[in-house]
């Protein structure tokens, strides 16, 4: 079963960390990524640039318009994702629970990825 783990955090929160905290945080991320690579669960993942660089396209007066800034004005922003293929939803949640951003007030969303296969109904 494939899951997308969506990382939500407060943009720029790492700027407030001490050198030591920052090193520890990136170290934790590296360690999780290494483990997921070794187990053959990691499908992919990307980190996103600061939301200040975001463009949002929405409908304005009946036609799509490109606007500066993120879709949602909120304290936490979508910061990146991991895609994993694991044996249970519990395992996916366990990976998310270890992601360090959670400790700094962020959140991880665990969302199943839709499958193109389907059983006979």
């Amino acid at each position, binding site marked *: *079963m*494939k899951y997308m783990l969506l990382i939500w955090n407060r943009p720029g929160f790492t700027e407030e960390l001490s050198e030591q905290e920052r090193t520890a945080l990136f170290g934790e991320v590296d360690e999780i990524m290494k483990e997921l*690579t*070794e*187990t*053959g*669960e*990691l*499908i*992919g993942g990307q980190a996103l640039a600061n939301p200040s660089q975001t463009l949002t396209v929405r409908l304005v007066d009946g036609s799509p318009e490109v606007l500066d800034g993120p879709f949602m004005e909120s304290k936490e922003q979508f910061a990146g994702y991991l895609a994993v*293929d694991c*044996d249970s939803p519990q395992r996916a949640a366990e990976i998310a629970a270890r992601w360090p951003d959670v400790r700094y007030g962020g959140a991880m969303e665990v969302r*199943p*990825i*839709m*499958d*193109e*296969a*389907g*059983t*006979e*109904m």
Partner: protein
Amino acid sequence: MTEDRTVEDLLRTFAPQVLGLLVRRHGQFDRCEDAVQEALLAAATQWPAQGVPDNPRAWLLTVATRRLTDEWRSESARRDREVAVARREPAYAGVAPAADAEPAVPADDDTLTLLFLCCHPALPGSAQVALTLRAVGGLSTAQIARAHLVPEATMSQRIRRAKQRIEAAGARFSMPGPAERDERLRTVLRVLYLIFNEGYTASSGPDLHRAELTGEAIRLARILRGLLPDDGEVTGLLALMLLTDAHRAARVGPDGELVPLAEQDRSRWDAAAITEGIALITEALTWSPPGPYQLQAAIAAVHAEASTAAETDWRQIVALYRLLARVAPNPMVTLNQAVAVAMVDGPRAGLALLTPLDADERTAGHHRLAAVRAHLLELAGDVGAAREAYLAAARDTTSRPEQRYLEVRAARLTGQG
């Protein structure tokens, strides 16, 4: 049949035999498995161009053994030798098998031992599947990765890890003892059925590589039946696969939409597969105590024997489900049983069977339960509740074709109640 196809068939047939011989001689399943993969790769590139050697199995064994001994030397020596092997290749084609190249035990036994090893209980299901496909099926990591829609690096790591776990568990290349053997065989059957379903539920288009798993599962089930002709469940599984796969052309509509069994164009069913499946299951049931795969195959056979959905012998199907529920109690069986009961005793009787499943953690909140309930509520004429249940099922499924199907069913009921 193209030359490439012949070569690939040959390679896939010999892969487990060569691996078995190699492990028997040298131990080290992990390394031997890698060496065989390299030999298969070499053959796949060289044979189509240079012709199939006189004794293909000896060729593969020779090349794999060389890879193995090369690896035991240094990395740089290995690299040099690959170049040399590539240059000297024509010489290999004529190499007569060495006196010791012929197996001391029948290759068949090795294939069975390999299957049992790949389905070792220390491995999670996904690893059992991947390893079985590679070591017994002779598929490359790239092919397995494509079929599972994951990057090759991910699959390669999963296979490496599986082999490490087997080694760490202290598993040896030998048949498990009688006490363990039965349970291990059940695991092998489950893994083959898993591979089959992974392929069967994939429809077409981007899933084409995945759909090929169905054929591979049937091929492996045939091999297993050749090895264990006296096991009724092995035959039952092969029959079940054939009878299910017979629907392939009819189960998906022109736009990729799922077509339920009752609405399939039965003239598009694969008659040859049905004939074979029915013959297999009918014969097996004359001598074997009926196990879960045989009973499911028997149910599939009853469906196959009806030339229209309306002619289905639902009474017989209900009787078979009752037996199945006794042999292998499982809420998923109850779900299917409820549909059959509804066809005989009316939808309310079917719905009553579903009630306890709401309290079963294996089915509570499962989209299949909501989907079956929706279907039975629709039959009962309770349009509003049926619509709600279809929508609940559509929300809970993670399959796009199923979601589409369920949403269409719900939409058809809108405005009717």
